[in-house]
């Protein structure tokens, strides 16, 4: 393990606390505060992964996760961005996309075959002949790609989501962001501050340069961070990346949890009145031959390795830079003990004179107007070639570290995804904000500023502008802040060089997708002229780094290479998520929610096998016999109990309640009599059946009605929608969850019920299709309906949810002598199918109308003044011969029942099987099917095709419905 500095004030690691982890099966140690990447670096690991296409060695480059170089498998999760992942005790880390190891990859010969893979070779080469493609695709997929994942992989970890409201949302916790947050907060506004690193401070935090009055930049960063922490109006989210910004000032992002947090990652959605975009800058990569060889890294990466993590990035270094930050870093690293052979600066002039003097004082050789041209060494850098920018003179140095950076580039994604625009700025050579989105303000280095005081002043200004959006700031104050900024140094001239004077066969513009300068040239030669199209054709910037590495260089290079007289330099588009985000983070916590009924506990005790049905979890079976033979037979011969609590249950009352019912139910609801149960249906405006249920009149304009389980959630919405213009007075009360339903069915049902009530419930006193209210055991208020869904004598008992368990126990006790048993949803399904009672969604699909189901008798066609939903369409459909009809059928020769959903065919598809079962009650296989009209006559032979049945067909014959007890004597007894 490398020695660490342990005295630097900027350190974010605790070198006294060791953390063990496993890399390639061996135990290694990092220290507290390390990221996975820095811990590996500290252990001398330089090659982290192999590249996508050519299997080139890749190592630490940016330290902020801007490329896929350091994507690794951590604890079984592929493509983890190691630079952004904090090291934890016991982590198991593996390299990915390698055959062998990252050090020795058998596939590295691919690097020599680049001539076989020009830009767009997928589209150009692999389709002639077409047969090649499937084979080629398989091979390519095997060799290329990053981490692997199996299709049944389940993501471990805890994910959460949080939706916040605030006045001002500040993206970026650097000096500008912190100043913006403070100035808004001081105006009394609530502020949310988002920072992707685990701490605030931005580009001040790791630098020792002077802020002012002998205060170092890192001291200033700490001061501001403390101010922010102390301000009660500011809520800071660190380790939080903003990944999307939308109009209406919606900001989305995700936060990586600390150990003590209840989540590993959480999705954050912030609705703000105003937004400040202050995400700072990243470095613009310098392009030369082998510019991604491990050992080549960006300025901030080298500097932060030392200053934040205490690791000297190498022994002997060469710098090839184009910005004062490079000179500053060279000085700092030199002071920390790095031997610097040479600093090549792209710029001839425009340097900070103070820095130049210090470089001279320390005797660091400086070459002005020079640039790196080629990194040597097959796996790690061991030598670097430099040349003058014009390529005329050259030099070489032995080294193990090349610090390379062409310049800086603002992180403007938060502005452009919210439909803001950028403009190329000739002075800085950067894309700077042009038109800002409404109520969004840019601050800091995003504006091209670099001077610490200017950066802070722009933050203050943006904070006040945001306060102005919230009507908490005057124009004068903004004017003063603007003047203060104008008196400070503005943006400095930036370099525009993209690539060293090289041919570019091994000069990589995009690391993630292995795209070289040569690939870009090839695309341009093919006629692509717009950066956005070249980006797609060459895949440049389409990798996990989201264009962080090539986003700025590509448009600059395209503009230059095309040598057009007046070419406008246009940036490529970025899209959310701006930072790679886990799908699990978006999915959040809610994906296994369901409702349970009040009978849940008792049914589970009785061995119920539960299934999710719609929003509910229901007992589907009560034994492992999935045909439910015993359950069915017990209902037919004794008595059974079913949990019907999932039924939608509603009360509608108020002076216009009847009118509302007339609007949505197809029947004439004015004919519903007190004490009777009316079965009816609801259609949509196309006449298609959407719901069925029963209605009970409790008084004038006071009704109780049920809906199917799946529709309960939409019933209020539906009735209110279709009466929205009428201004009617009625109240709708959803009683679905407050009432439970027990369905007591079977020839002995009355005998059981008689034992728990003390009123007369004989067939004469409480007949079929009647409604009664009474108390069970003198206590439980019950609404009882005599229905016959399963075709037997049955009582549907609606009782308050809190009493369901008690009633269930009473009935169980009372029914002991009659062998009362549970039955589940599947048994009910077979029982009602034998009786040809439909279940919507099974005997119907979206296009099935009331008439198709043979339920036309429910429809009262004379109530036109009610404007019943669906009536117009039903009238039009009445004479339509092309529609499917619901028929009953039984199979020929006692063959088994076809599967639900099997097709009815002849030369073509003529319909489908809705429900079919081998009936124990009838000793034959019966079912219902929706078939074309001409097949619906009694006696028609149906040819039934099941999935993958080949030539084996099942044959059926259309028969009369219902199959069981056609006269209905059993349910009326």
């Amino acid at each position: 393990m490398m020695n660490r500095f342990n005295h630097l004030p900027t350190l974010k690691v605790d070198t006294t606390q060791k953390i063990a982890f496993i890399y390639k099966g061996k135990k290694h140690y990092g220290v507290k505060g390390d990221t996975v990447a820095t811990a590996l670096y500290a252990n001398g690991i330089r090659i982290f992964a192999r590249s996508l296409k050519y299997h080139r060695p890749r190592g630490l480059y940016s330290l902020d996760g801007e490329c896929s170089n350091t994507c690794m498998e951590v604890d079984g999760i592929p493509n983890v961005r190691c630079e952004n992942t904090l090291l934890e005790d016991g982590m198991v880390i593996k390299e990915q996309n390698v055959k062998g190891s990252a050090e020795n990859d058998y596939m590295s010969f691919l690097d020599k075959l680049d001539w076989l893979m020009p830009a767009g070779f997928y589209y150009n080469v692999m389709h002639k002949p077409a047969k090649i493609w499937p084979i080629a695709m398989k091979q390519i997929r095997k060799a290329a790609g990053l981490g692997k994942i199996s299709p049944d992989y389940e993501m471990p970890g805890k994910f959460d989501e949080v939706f916040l409201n605030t006045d001002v949302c500040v993206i970026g916790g650097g000096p500008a962001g912190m100043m913006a947050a403070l100035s808004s907060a001081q105006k009394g506004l609530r502020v949310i501050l988002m920072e992707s690193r685990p701490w605030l401070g931005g580009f001040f935090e790791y630098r020792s340069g002077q802020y002012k009055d002998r205060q170092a930049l890192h001291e200033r960063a700490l001061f501001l961070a403390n101010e922010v922490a102390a301000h009660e109006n500011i809520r800071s989210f660190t380790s939080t990346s903003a990944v999307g910004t939308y109009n209406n000032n919606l900001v989305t992002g995700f936060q990586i949890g600390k150990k003590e947090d209840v989540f590993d990652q959480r999705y954050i959605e912030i609705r703000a009145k105003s937004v400040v975009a202050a995400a700072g800058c990243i470095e613009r990569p310098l392009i030369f031959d082998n510019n991604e060889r491990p050992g080549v890294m960006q300025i901030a990466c080298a500097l932060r390795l030392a200053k934040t993590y205490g690791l000297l990035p190498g022994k002997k270094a060469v710098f090839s830079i184009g910005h004062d930050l490079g000179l500053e870093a060279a000085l700092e690293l030199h002071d920390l003990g790095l031997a610097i052979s040479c600093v090549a600066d792209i710029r001839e002039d425009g340097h900070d004179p103070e820095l130049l003097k210090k470089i001279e004082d320390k005797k660091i050789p400086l070459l002005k107007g020079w640039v790196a041209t080629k990194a040597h060494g097959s796996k790690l850098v061991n030598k670097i070639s430099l040349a003058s920018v014009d390529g005329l003179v050259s030099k070489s140095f032995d080294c193990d570290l090349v610090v390379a950076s062409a310049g800086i580039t603002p992180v403007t994604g938060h502005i452009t995804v919210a439909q803001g625009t950028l403009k190329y700025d000739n002075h800085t050579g950067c894309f700077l904000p042009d038109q800002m989105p409404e109520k969004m303000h840019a601050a800091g280095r995003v504006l091209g500023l670099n001077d610490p005081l200017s950066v802070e002043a722009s933050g203050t200004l943006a904070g006040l502008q945001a306060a102005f959006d919230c009507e908490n700031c005057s124009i004068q104050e903004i004017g003063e802040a603007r003047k203060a900024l104008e008196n400070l140094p503005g943006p400095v001239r930036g370099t525009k060089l993209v690539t060293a004077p090289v041919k570019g066969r091994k000069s990589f513009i995009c690391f993630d997708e292995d795209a070289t300068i040569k690939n870009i040239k090839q695309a341009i030669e093919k006629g692509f002229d717009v950066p956005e199209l070249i980006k797609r054709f060459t895949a440049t910037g389409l990798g996990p780094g989201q264009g962080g590495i090539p986003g700025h260089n590509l448009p600059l290079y395209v503009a230059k290479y095309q040598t057009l007289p007046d070419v406008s330099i246009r940036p490529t588009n970025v899209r959310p998520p701006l930072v790679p985000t886990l799908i699990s983070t978006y999915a959040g916590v809610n994906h296994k929610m369901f409702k349970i009924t009040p009978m849940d506990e008792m049914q589970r005790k009785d061995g119920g096998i539960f299934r999710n049905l719609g929003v509910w979890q229901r007992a589907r079976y009560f034994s492992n016999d999935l045909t439910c033979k015993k359950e069915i037979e017990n209902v037919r011969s004794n008595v059974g109990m079913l949990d019907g609590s999932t039924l939608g249950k509603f009360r509608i009352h108020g002076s216009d309640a009847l009118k509302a019912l007339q609007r949505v139910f197809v029947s004439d609801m004015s004919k519903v009599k007190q004490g009777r149960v009316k079965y009816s249906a609801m259609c949509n405006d196309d006449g298609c059946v959407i719901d069925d249920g029963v209605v009970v009149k409790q008084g004038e304009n006071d009704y109780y009605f049920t809906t199917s389980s799946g529709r309960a959630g939409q019933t209020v919405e539906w009735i209110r929608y279709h009466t929205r213009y009428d201004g009617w007075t009625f109240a709708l009360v959803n009683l679905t969850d407050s009432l439970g339903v027990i369905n007591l069915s079977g020839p002995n049902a009355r005998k059981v019920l008689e034992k728990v009530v003390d009123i007369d419930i004989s067939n004469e006193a409480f007949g079929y299709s009647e409604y009664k209210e009474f108390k069970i055991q003198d206590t439980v208020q019950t609404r009882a309906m005599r229905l016959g869904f399963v075709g037997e004598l049955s009582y549907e008992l609606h009782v308050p949810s809190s009493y369901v368990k008690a009633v269930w126990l009473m009935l169980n006790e009372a029914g002991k002598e009659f062998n009362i048993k549970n039955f589940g949803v599947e048994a009910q399904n077979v029982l009602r199918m034998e009786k040809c009672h439909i279940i919507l969604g099974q005997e119907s699909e979206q296009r099935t109308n009331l008439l198709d189901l043979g339920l036309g008798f429910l429809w009262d066609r004379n109530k036109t003044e009610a404007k019943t939903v669906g009536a117009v369409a039903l009238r039009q459909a009445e004479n339509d011969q092309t529609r499917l009809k619901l028929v009953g059928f039984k199979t020929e020769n006692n063959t088994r029942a076809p599967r639900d959903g099997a097709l009815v065919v002849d030369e073509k598809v003529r319909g489908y099987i809705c429900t079919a079962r081998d009936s124990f009650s009838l000793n034959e296989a019966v079912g219902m099917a929706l078939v074309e009209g001409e097949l619906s006559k009694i006696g028609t032979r149906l040819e039934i095709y099941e999935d993958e049945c080949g030539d084996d067909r099942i044959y059926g014959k259309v028969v009369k419905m219902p199959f069981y007890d056609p006269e209905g004597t059993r349910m009326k007894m």
Partner: protein
Amino acid sequence: MALTITCPICGKRNGYEFKFGGEEKGPRPEEKDLTPEAWCDYVHMNKCVAGVQQEWWFHKDGCGSWFPIYRDTTTNLEQEDQKATNQEGKNDEQV
């Protein structure tokens, strides 16, 4: 969802709480003498304007009421200025 909707009862709320209910097309037509075409137009035809549209929303995770709002379909923002592009023709007819 970037959209916020102002419910007449609950005030300005997150768009996630609401369910879309289609363009404003006026009350249900009288059934007498209604042609199938006219009916189909009423139920299924939409203007789909690029501009300010008057449309219905349901406060599903809230008070459970239906109400119309004006929304600019090009920006997906609710408009306070109550002039809808999809209602222009209608006003002419009334005049």
